[in-house]
């Protein structure tokens, strides 16, 4: 049934596009609508906004799932959400938060900010950028459709076999996981290539690598991590799909398969993944702390070195998730030591932030508030990280709430808080509106207090014998008390998040009157109007130093342009990325419902559109110099 609907809709869509539609007026209306504008956009700022908004939506969905988890755990023996239902919510919470909330929020900020920070007019591959977004978003939708068609995946976000095989997860849930993530994964890989090439090839004249802002640096390293980590997941998902759909035997031990291979593949991806979600937060920290301390980032060079080192080491430690699998003491020791070394470059970063603030003039605007909240929480998460890195001790921590506490301290206390800082910081640049400071405080305080209330007791839950991924626990007072505190804490986080959402809504009610440089910023994105015009920079700037914008403000000399005023070439909007992603979506849905014809059809459609794209001659369009100045005046008026 679902198959039929989707095929019909797709066919209608196709005919409408191919025939040019029947009703010209209606078509014009569509073409001028905001929705069409966003569906066809290749502008990195708009794509960034799409990423960010989608990320927020999924964050709330994932948050509601977290809420359900905590409600179930408020008392032992609670029967609000038990058995398979609990496992579904748990799996979707982890998967949604990591793949559909944290990553797109990060990509959103990167898309908006990085080209502006390096003084570029666009990203290297605008088409690919749009394609990446749409693949991500269709993949995410596909994954969440599982709730309505057949049940959500229930084998944990790590989807360990053999639980994830047909024999033990017979429903389509894990298929949604496999194909949904595969599709988002392809999009992610494209974005990674796009960001890396943009940063390497399109920096403004004079912006050497050691003059690049920290956020751009972390984006570059994150892209590299994605580039090398995603393929492992792709392979893992492919093999799991073969096992589930086509009867392959990679993970069937009775036919010679091995469960450990899945774990290797997953964690070769999975560990770099956690640095993928923290690294951009490090970048945001660096920007925000130095801006609101009114100081140059302390130890910039060592910061760059630390980021690169963390990125590299991130690939050498994946086995620390597998200490209890029984790989032997040699392997455990080697990977334990490799894991511990990561504390060193991370420490360098933490101390550099502290010493950036040292001697500065700290202005606790909302972004700074979040940045300041980040440091102790993240350090606590990192400390427990080092603790779980010790195999003998990890034999106790592994798969208990201690680990849950560890990774929420790093991912909520690190990534999410960092992203909030970034959101408040760059909101004016994205939308031309500032978020309200007072509501910002209403966001920060309940959230951070609630956060510690929720996750701090979880360390003890783990040590007192509560495994993770359970819907009930021993009926003893200590576990009960700690769980109740933990659940109460979520109220704080909910209030905070609601304040944020209210703040966003309020900001759209106000006039878009944010100044170009509301925070006395240091990097290039603050040199152009908020929101920036489509072409970003009228003339590409000439960079002579790190923090060039700040220096020119101090010396009173404008940043020199590196080129005369001239016409600007822009890529034209296109609906092909949307169409290609839709094809992938159809294909994915086909495979999940075991409609192999539909699956193949979607894939073929994808490749056909790809070849169409290759033949398409995109001349783009040009913005003339007189239009440029005109736009400029408008922005000023």
């Amino acid at each position: 049934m679902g198959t039929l609907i989707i095929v019909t809709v797709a066919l209608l869509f196709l005919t409408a596009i191919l025939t040019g539609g029947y009703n010209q007026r209606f078509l014009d209306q569509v073409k001028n609508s905001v929705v069409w504008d966003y569906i066809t956009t290749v502008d990195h700022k708009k794509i960034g906004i799409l990423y960010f908004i989608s990320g927020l939506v999924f964050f709330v969905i994932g948050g509601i799932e977290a809420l359900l988890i905590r409600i179930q755990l408020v008392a032992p023996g609670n029967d609000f959400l038990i058995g398979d239902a609990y496992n579904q919510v748990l799996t979707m919470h982890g998967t949604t938060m990591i793949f559909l909330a944290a990553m797109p929020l990060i990509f959103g900020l990167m898309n908006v900010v990085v080209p502006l920070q390096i003084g570029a007019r666009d990203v290297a591959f605008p088409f690919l950028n749009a394609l990446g977004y749409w693949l991500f978003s269709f993949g995410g939708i596909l994954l969440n459709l599982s709730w309505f068609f057949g049940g959500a995946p229930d084998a944990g976000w790590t989807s360990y076999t053999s639980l994830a095989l047909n024999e033990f997860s017979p429903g389509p849930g894990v298929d949604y996981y496999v194909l949904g993530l595969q599709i988002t994964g392809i999009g992610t890989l494209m974005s990674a290539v796009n960001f890396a090439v943009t940063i390497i090839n399109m920096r403004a004249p004079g912006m050497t690598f050691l003059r690049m802002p920290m956020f751009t640096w972390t984006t570059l390293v994150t892209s590299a991590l994605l580039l090398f980590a995603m393929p492992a997941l792709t392979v893992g998902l492919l093999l799991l799909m073969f096992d589930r759909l086509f009867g392959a035997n990679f993970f069937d031990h009775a036919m010679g398969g091995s469960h450990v291979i899945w774990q290797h593949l997953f964690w070769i991806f999975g560990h770099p993944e956690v640095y993928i979600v923290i690294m951009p937060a490090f970048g945001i920290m660096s920007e925000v702390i130095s801006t609101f301390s009114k100081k140059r980032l302390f130890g910039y060079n060592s910061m760059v070195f630390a980021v690169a080192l963390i990125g590299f080491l991130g690939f050498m430690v994946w086995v620390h998730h597998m200490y209890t699998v029984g790989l032997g003491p040699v392997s455990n020791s080697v990977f334990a030591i490799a894991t511990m070394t990561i504390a060193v470059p991370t420490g360098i970063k933490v101390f550099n932030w502290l010493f950036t603030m040292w001697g500065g003039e700290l202005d606790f605007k909302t972004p700074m508030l979040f940045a300041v909240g980040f440091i102790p929480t993240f350090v606590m998460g990192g400390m427990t990280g080092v603790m779980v890195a010790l195999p003998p001790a990890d034999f106790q921590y592994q798969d208990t709430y201690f680990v849950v506490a560890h990774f929420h301290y790093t991912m909520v206390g690190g990534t999410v808080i960092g992203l909030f800082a970034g959101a408040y910081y760059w909101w004016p640049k994205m939308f031309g509106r500032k978020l309200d400071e007072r509501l910002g405080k209403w966001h920060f305080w309940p959230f951070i207090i609630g956060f510690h209330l929720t996750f701090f007791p979880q360390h003890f839950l783990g040590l007192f014998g509560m495994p993770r991924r359970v819907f009930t626990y021993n009926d003893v007072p200590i576990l009960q008390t700690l769980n109740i505190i933990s659940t109460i804490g979520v109220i704080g986080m909910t209030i905070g998040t609601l304040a944020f959402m209210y703040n966003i809504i309020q900001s759209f009610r106000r006039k878009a009157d944010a100044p170009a440089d509301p925070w006395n910023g240091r990097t290039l994105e603050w040199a152009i109007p908020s929101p920036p015009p489509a072409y970003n920079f009228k003339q590409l700037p000439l960079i002579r130093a790190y923090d060039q914008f700040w220096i020119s403000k101090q010396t009173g000399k404008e940043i020199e342009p590196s080129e005369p005023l001239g016409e600007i070439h822009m890529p034209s909007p296109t609906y092909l990325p949307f169409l290609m992603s839709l094809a992938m979506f159809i294909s994915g849905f086909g495979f999940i419902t075991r409609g192999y014809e539909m699956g193949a059809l979607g894939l073929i459609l994808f490749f056909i559109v790809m070849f169409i794209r290759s033949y398409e001659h995109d001349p783009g369009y040009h913005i003339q110099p007189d239009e440029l100045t005109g736009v400029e005046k408008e922005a000023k008026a």
Partner: protein
Amino acid sequence: MAKQNGASANKSQALKHVIAFAVMIVLTAIAFYLVATNIITMQLLVPILLVLATIQVILQLYFFMHLDQKGTGFQILFMAAGIVIAVVSAVGILLM
């Protein structure tokens, strides 16, 4: 003048490519020969085969994929990082 220069450069390019190709064929032939005739022990054979393959791959990357040209620093950096990570991953999976 410049054109002529370019043409001769191309000739030398082509020559370079043919030589690289010949070396690759020879290396491949050695590898197949060693396996087919079974003249050396396993312990020795495996590293030799790996070395032969590695040399071939370097030749491909360097001459055929134009990494010998200028301005390919980032290509080489990323490829090298990719190869290191690839080797670590493959060996990790294998030695589980």
